[in-house]
């Protein structure tokens, strides 16, 4: 039952073949059996999930009209505020904090009757590409437990790959949905910036952060996308326009006559051989399905990583200032006679991890007077140039494509002490965030040299998210036809359960 797609589960729930309580319990059992090895979850809300499932079953029994994913369970990245449920962002500084309010994404999930199983592990405050920066220990890749599941949303991607949940919520600031999807053989979508409300998403970098759906199939991601997207008056940057027709696009999977642009700068040197092979193969399959493959150039992408590591840390240095021990979370050094300043300092020293501190310091420096123009100012100009590159490219192609990341999953600990090598992982995903456009990663097969999943990235223009779903669905269908089974069937069996 747990290996089905969310759409299949939804169909069985609708027909009465299975109850949400049974389905939820099956996932809770799976979590109990495999999560000691995977460590995808930071908090499992057994009672809450079962109560929510029972409420959905009761509504269904009464014949109430329910939304398409009602009763299907989901794993929530721990960066999303959920009323009454611990929300740590993978940080010690928020240990014990239970939000008194629901994020808009959570409110939308609840409105759609989607059952929230618990909170998933992540790099602290979403800063990282391996989930090793979690203050609560790393998550392990179900394909190889000695490897990373990607980051920052490694908990959500691992939960999907380990069949602990059929759906998950991620957030993507520089690739934190797509890169974990790529290295775990799952699907992850970063919608257009402003497509999904950020209200209740604990901010890392406000101008780049975007929540989105994670799933095992393109259609499942589309169903979840529609459930969480839409204008939110509580988020001033939320787009007030109809949600793109992503479910229809995922169902059609029609790419006939579509122009698919291969970004010259996001391929070649520095990309693992197996990654390149799977990418070329996917292009062939799309061409066979009727798409026209063209090459496009984005000359300013080479500055994207550098600009990202000025903008994101700058915004984070300000966003994370609120963690000061005054109103919530950790408080250290509050002894008789201690000043507010010393409590703030001690709390931040103890509460934040190394990577978070590194970025706060970097961002504080980049925003300092005298340096602002050279760093933050220049980075914003690069951002404009990247947007222009995309605009130009989209005059030649309907969507753009690239490998999601340069390599397959690396070993836990391999890059932990080399931040630059770690940052390079996001080289192909970052431009999407800089321009605020949509991006998807879906599995394109396994690399020959290590047998690990490879991700294929599709990028679509602002509020044209349906295009990446159409292309993703077409590629997914072609690959399934080629392999005969879903890619996750090739993964090692965990915990003995099927």
């Amino acid at each position, binding site marked *: 039952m747990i290996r089905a797609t969310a759409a299949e589960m939804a169909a069985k729930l609708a027909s009465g073949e299975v109850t949400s309580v049974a389905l939820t319990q099956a996932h809770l059992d799976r979590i109990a059996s495999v999560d000691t090895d995977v460590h995808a979850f930071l908090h499992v809300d057994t009672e809450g999930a079962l109560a929510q499932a029972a409420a959905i079953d009761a509504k269904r029994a009464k014949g109430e009209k329910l939304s398409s994913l009602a009763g299907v369970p989901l794993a929530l990245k721990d960066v*999303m*505020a959920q009323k009454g449920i611990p*929300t740590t*962002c993978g940080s010690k500084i*928020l240990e014990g*904090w239970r*939000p*008194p*309010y629901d*994020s808009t994404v959570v409110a939308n999930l609840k409105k759609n009757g989607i059952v929230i199983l618990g909170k998933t592990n992540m790099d602290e405050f979403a800063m990282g590409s391996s989930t090793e920066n979690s203050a609560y220990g790393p998550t392990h890749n179900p394909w190889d437990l000695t490897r990373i599941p990607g980051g920052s949303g490694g908990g959500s991607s691992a939960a999907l790959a380990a069949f602990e949940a059929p759906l998950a919520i991620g957030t993507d600031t520089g690739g934190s949905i797509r890169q974990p999807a790529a290295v775990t053989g799952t699907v992850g979508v970063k919608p257009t910036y402003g497509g999904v409300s*950020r*209200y*209740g*998403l*604990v*901010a890392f*970098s*406000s*101008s780049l952060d975007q929540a989105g759906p994670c799933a095992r199939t393109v259609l499942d991601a589309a169903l979840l996308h529609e459930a969480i997207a839409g204008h939110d*008056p*509580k*988020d*001033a*940057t939320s787009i007030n326009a109809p949600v793109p027709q992503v479910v229809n696009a995922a169902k059609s999977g029609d790419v006939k006559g579509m122009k698919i642009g291969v970004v010259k700068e996001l391929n070649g040197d520095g990309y693992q051989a197996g990654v390149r092979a799977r990418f070329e193969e996917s292009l062939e399959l799309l061409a066979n399905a009727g798409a026209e493959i063209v090459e496009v150039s984005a000359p300013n992408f080479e500055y994207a990583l550098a600009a990202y590591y000025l903008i994101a840390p*700058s*915004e984070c*240095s*300000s966003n994370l*200032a*609120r*963690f*000061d021990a*005054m*109103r*919530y979370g950790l408080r250290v050094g509050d002894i008789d006679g201690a*000043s*507010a*300043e010393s409590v*703030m300092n001690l709390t931040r020293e103890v509460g934040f991890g190394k990577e978070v501190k590194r970025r706060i310091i970097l961002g*504080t420096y980049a*925003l*300092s*007077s005298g340096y*602002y123009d050279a760093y*933050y100012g220049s980075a914003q100009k690069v951002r404009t140039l990247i947007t222009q590159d995309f605009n130009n490219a989209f005059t030649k192609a309907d969507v753009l494509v690239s490998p999601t990341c340069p390599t397959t999953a690396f070993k836990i600990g391999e890059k932990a002490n080399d931040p630059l090598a770690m940052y390079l992982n996001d080289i192909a995903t970052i431009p999407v965030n800089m321009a605020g456009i949509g991006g998807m990663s879906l599995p394109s097969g396994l690399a020959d040299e290590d047998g690990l999943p490879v991700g294929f990235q599709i990028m679509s223009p602002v509020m044209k998210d349906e295009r990446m779903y159409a292309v993703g669905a077409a590629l997914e269908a072609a690959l399934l036809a080629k392999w005969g089974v879903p890619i996750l069937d090739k993964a090692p069996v965990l915990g003995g359960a099927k």
Partner: protein
Amino acid sequence: MSLTYDEVVAKYEPVLGLEVHVELNTNSKMFCGCSTIFGAEPNTQTCPVCLALPGALPVVNEKAIESTIKIGLALNCSIAPFSRFARKNYFYPDMPKNFQISQYDEPICVDGYVDVEIETDEGPKQFRVEVERVHMEEDTGKSLHVGGATGRIHGADYSLLDYNRAGIPLVEIVTKIVPATGKYAPEVAKAYVSELRDILRGLGVSDVKMEQGSLRCDANVSLRLIGSDVLGTRSETKNVNSLRSVERAVRGEMIRHAELLNKGERVVQETRHFQEDTGLTRSGRSKEQAEDYRYFPEPDLVPVAPDAAWVEELRAGIPERPSLHRKRLQEAWNVPAKEMEAMINADVLGIVEATVNLGADPTKARSWWLGEISRLANERNAAIADLSITPTDVAEIVALVEKGELTDKLARQVVEGVIAGEGTPAEVVSKRGIKVVNDDGALMAAIEKVCAEQAETAEKVRNGHLPAAGALIGAVMKETKGQADAARVRELLLGHLGQ
């Protein structure tokens, strides 16, 4: 070596700069829906947004933008077609996000001016105070430092935080430097803040209560030798909570600076806190090293781009400038400047105007509000505006007196009744049975009685000494318990005595 003010201005020229913070009177806060009512229980007007809970986001209060544009228009500013919010980053416990959402290099209103008039040795003189910018920001919470000698955070035993004020919309109005005011700098500063307060009150965008902090002034003062064009080091005096204090603070700082400069010492660039009791300032935070606020555009908000047609619509609705309006009233009513000032100081000008607009004679309306009603307000320790008497009531009372249905003395009883909540003037008159005695028979009886009692005085009047009639009229009024119309009494009395 203590200097007199005259000695200071004989040698130095003061340069002024004024920063005024105004709390807008919107119903909700700048970036969330919380109430803004003053004086609520601590921390009851808060939500995830103004407490800066993780994940919460700001959304701009459109009403605050409208009020700010109105202020900009009333101060003759240009309204920027595109402006942005920025984050001002610094740590302080009463600032929930540890950054303040403000505006930095792209404020919403720029380049305006306010003309103020003050009395000088050569008569009334106008000074133009140029406004550099008007921008929006949010207020911080309030800290109460308990224990310790100074009430400041250093040395306190503990501090209490109230976030009700956090996120209240603030507008900051910054002047350019105001040169060439000479010895009138303190008066110009006061006149500017006073004019600003009137303009803001006229716009209805703020309570402008200095004592409650809804209008706060920081006065920047520096001195330079007369004839020099090099600016001196300035101090920034905060906590100036009344118009009088603005004047005192500027004067005090001028003297303090001059004493330092005369001794060959330097003025420290710092904030100073004004002390109401002594009129002096004490040293605050040093500004010798410019604090780095790491401003950058607020990424959680979109730029403010007011529609030009909307701005024009707002411009059309800006009321006449209060000082001009006042001049017009003064001429129309033919009131001496002193009386005008008395009405302004007592905060009754608007009420008097309303009363006059309802048909009352300006002199009568003024004397009721400024006299009897002010007295009753004082007795009750209340503001005139808080009494239950309205311009309509006063206009009605003035009309009743004119028609001879009330005497001044009876009218005072009616005023008292209205304030006591007994109803409208007509209702008070009927409930209390107040009426003028205009039964000539009853009056004649009283006149005859008084003339008999004071035969000597009556004789004087009979012989043509009319001033003596006053005493008799008074006695008749007393006899009739004040319910007689004094004019009618006089008429009958003089007739009775053959005059």
